[in-house]
């Protein structure tokens, strides 16, 4: 059976999952994006080490800090970013099955959730300011703004990259054989999600 016939209009991939699997042993996207991803992951690792060192030297500030933050905003941001990453994974599977129409739809969902993240984060920064929490409130908030604003910028330009992927999809630049550009964008977007997977528990959950 033709693999494209295995997908329902709703994008149900249970039957087509095997056809959508990427080639074994490949480098996803291209080598250049992996240099960038490892650089970015190293940068975030440095932030986490700074967090660890600051925490052991100022335990009171880091024990009280998470209770001052808006847990709902942090949780909603985590849910939206994980969903966004899932939508991008769906878009990759669709293009491997030569369904650019569905791929565009999933990419639009991904950009939408990326924008929701940015709105929630902006609202959270505003809420913090109203409570009187600024960059120089204490060392916890200095580290909090250092990490979260840096990540905020990544989501911003990552969303721009997703929009570029949608533009290229609409130009029919990608199909089941050639989709290196889309996979490059997808890999970078997942990296942004991975950084937040660590940031959320460090700042909002662990006391």
């Amino acid at each position, binding site marked *: 059976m033709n693999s494209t016939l295995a997908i329902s209009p709703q994008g149900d991939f*249970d039957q087509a999952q095997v056809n959508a699997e990427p080639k074994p042993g490949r480098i*996803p996207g291209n080598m250049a994006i992996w240099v960038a991803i490892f650089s970015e992951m190293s940068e975030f690792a440095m932030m986490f080490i700074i967090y660890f060192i600051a*925490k052991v030297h100022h335990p009171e500030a880091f024990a009280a800090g998470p209770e001052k933050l808006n847990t709902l905003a942090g949780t909603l941001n985590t849910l939206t970013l994980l*969903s966004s*990453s899932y939508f991008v*994974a769906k878009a990759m599977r669709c293009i491997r099955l030569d369904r650019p129409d569905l791929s565009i739809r999933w990419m639009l969902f991904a950009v939408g959730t990326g924008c929701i993240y940015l709105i929630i984060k902006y609202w959270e920064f505003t809420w913090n300011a109203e409570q009187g929490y600024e960059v120089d409130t204490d060392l916890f908030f200095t580290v909090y703004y250092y990490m979260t604003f840096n990540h905020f910028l990544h989501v911003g330009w990552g969303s721009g990259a997703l929009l570029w992927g949608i533009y290229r999809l609409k130009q029919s630049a990608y199909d089941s054989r050639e989709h290196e550009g889309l996979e490059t964008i997808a890999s970078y977007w997942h990296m942004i999600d991975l950084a937040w997977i660590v940031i959320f528990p460090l700042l909002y959950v662990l006391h």
Partner: protein
Amino acid sequence: MQLSLRNIDFIWLVLMIITVLNAVVAETADGSLLITIIIAISIGFKGRMVVQRFMELHNANRFIKNMMNAYFYVIPLLVVIVQAFPDTIANLTRLN
């Protein structure tokens, strides 16, 4: 929906549930070592699920896959070490 950690729909659902549970912990639990270990395990699990299934590295280039997976063993381990031995880490990182 196929209830398997190879199915990205199911993985997405599991990640959502873990995130909500993390939020409950944030609102209710104390900063004990046990809670820290549970949170560290959840960081490692979530990270490796995204790496392997959303990022599709489960069958990709071995170096890239191993490096990305290692990140989500090392960071959770550091989280536990910092919680378990804060004074030792503080002494090791003191400037004077």
